[in-house]
């Protein structure tokens, strides 16, 4: 898949409490959560972003709580992917599990400025900065993650595994 979008840049250590503040966790509806995405670090974000825009951040993106509401809010808002220098581990798992594409690349993050236009090839892990005319390649996802993605996410994997076990009984 090829993703194209404008960059919204965030700093290091963006935690899940600013991605989706806990005061909105009394629901798990993606549309409702999306209305408050990044509200406590950039209240303008949801109002001004366009569908397909890309979040670019520093290290340790998504640190803190295990709330899956964080990647759900980001995906629900229409963000096409997140590129960061590194991700906190639970956020990483959650994003993969719900099908939000994420990429780790120090180079890509350092190269881009807010508003730059990026083109991302999600399968090859190639990030093109069209505004700066620069290209960088991220490391491919671990094989097991690719396997989960290839069957359509963890939820589909579980259905297949339950079926397989049923057949084995």
């Amino acid at each position: 898949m090829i993703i194209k979008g404008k960059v919204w840049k965030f700093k290091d250590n963006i935690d899940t409490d600013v991605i989706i503040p806990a005061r909105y966790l009394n629901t798990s509806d993606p549309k409702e959560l999306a209305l408050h995405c990044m509200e406590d670090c950039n209240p303008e974000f949801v109002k001004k972003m366009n569908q397909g825009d890309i979040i670019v951040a520093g290290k340790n993106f998504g640190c803190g709580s295990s709330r899956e509401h964080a990647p759900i809010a980001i995906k629900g808002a229409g963000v096409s992917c997140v590129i960061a220098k590194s991700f906190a581990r639970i956020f990483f798992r959650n994003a993969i599990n719900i099908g939000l594409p994420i990429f780790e690349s120090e180079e890509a993050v350092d190269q881009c400025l807010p508003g730059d236009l990026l083109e991302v090839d999600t399968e090859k892990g190639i990030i093109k900065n069209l505004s700066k005319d620069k290209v960088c390649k991220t490391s491919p996802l671990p094989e097991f993650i690719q396997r989960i993605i290839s069957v359509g996410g963890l939820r589909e994997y579980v259905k297949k595994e339950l079926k397989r076990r049923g057949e084995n009984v």
Partner: protein
Amino acid sequence: MGKTIVEKILSSHTDTDNFKIGDIIKARVDFAFANDITAPIAIKYFKESGAGQVFDKKRVGLIPDHFAPNKDIKSAEQCKLLREFAREYKIENYFEIGKMGVEHALLPEKGLVLPGDIVVGADSHTDTSGALGAFAIGVGSTDLAAIMALGEVWLKVPPTIKFVYSGKLNKWVSGKDLILYTISKIGVDGANYKVMEFSGEAIKGLSMDNRFTMCNMAIEAGAKTGIIEPDKITLEYLKGRAKRPYQIYKSDPDAHYEKIIEIDVSKIEPQVAFPHLPENAKPISKAKGIKIDQSIIGSCTNGRIEDLRIAAEILKGQQVHPEVRLIVIPATQDIYLQALREGLIDIFISSGAAVSTPTCGPCLGGYMGILAKGERAISTTNRNFVGRMGHPESEVYLASPAVAAASAIVGRIASPEEVKQG
């Protein structure tokens, strides 16, 4: 070459032989749980998966603790989902209001998570149970749905950083101060994807309550989990609690660690983590004098009986400062009852504190002590992120129960020594 405690636990829960760090393994789960925030999504996906039942009715826990007792209609709907699911699927470990507590304090107390276990919870502070010598990790809701259906989890085998704590603790220095100090040394991503193994003579001398506090905050350094080898103190704690047999694992002397970090605890003062990251810890001598509006003593980090005893020792015969709200939240009903029997609740209320039924409440800005714009709290909780306890322009300073209690009396961040000699 020898193995670490974590490598041994993982080996005993997988059919894969000879895995190495970085490999992906499928591991059997001994106990899985979720709360009123994370369970609703997990339940939805579990039902969609077509699994007719959970992998083991005795090994799934559902704990309404975050916004419970229900703080509003939406929270009430979420808690209702847990209750109905527990009844429908005959989940044995659903904890109703009146019996519930903050999950990470409640599950060890009830003997449901044990040494040698793989514990997976849909909450980041699941690492707390590592204090028992279990491999305990936090995940999200989709992961938990998969575990409820399959009884197993995908794991990337993590490297371990060993922390060796030597020396004697100074007066008023607790597990909370050790972990805040440690996070300040390695940073909030200093252990990302890794295990923090806490060891050394200073850890051997720590009570279980202090050990839980330390493992609880391993996630604040990004860790996959924190863990402490079981010893006599662990076994003593488990007596009369453990609901099933368990296995003790210990790290071999020649186990491989990614790094070994030595810390002399005799040089550590009580710590205070400044806004807005847990890594911003400073010694109390550099934090004194900051005016506060609220003090919170409670949470999965510091709402256990020893925490309440220390707070009561400081508050006894004293009055909470007229411009401060002190809110004390015992983490479980058993802790609440014990505190009542020991006269601690009497001390709190007599000093002018509010005492709440167990809940996560203010820790994550849910309710029961939300901060207004510009307000500042000292808190025994685990995170001081922007807006964590309320308004985005409020502030949270993290500290031990001793410092939170002393600060509540003085009205400013204060050392216990300022209100109590010796």
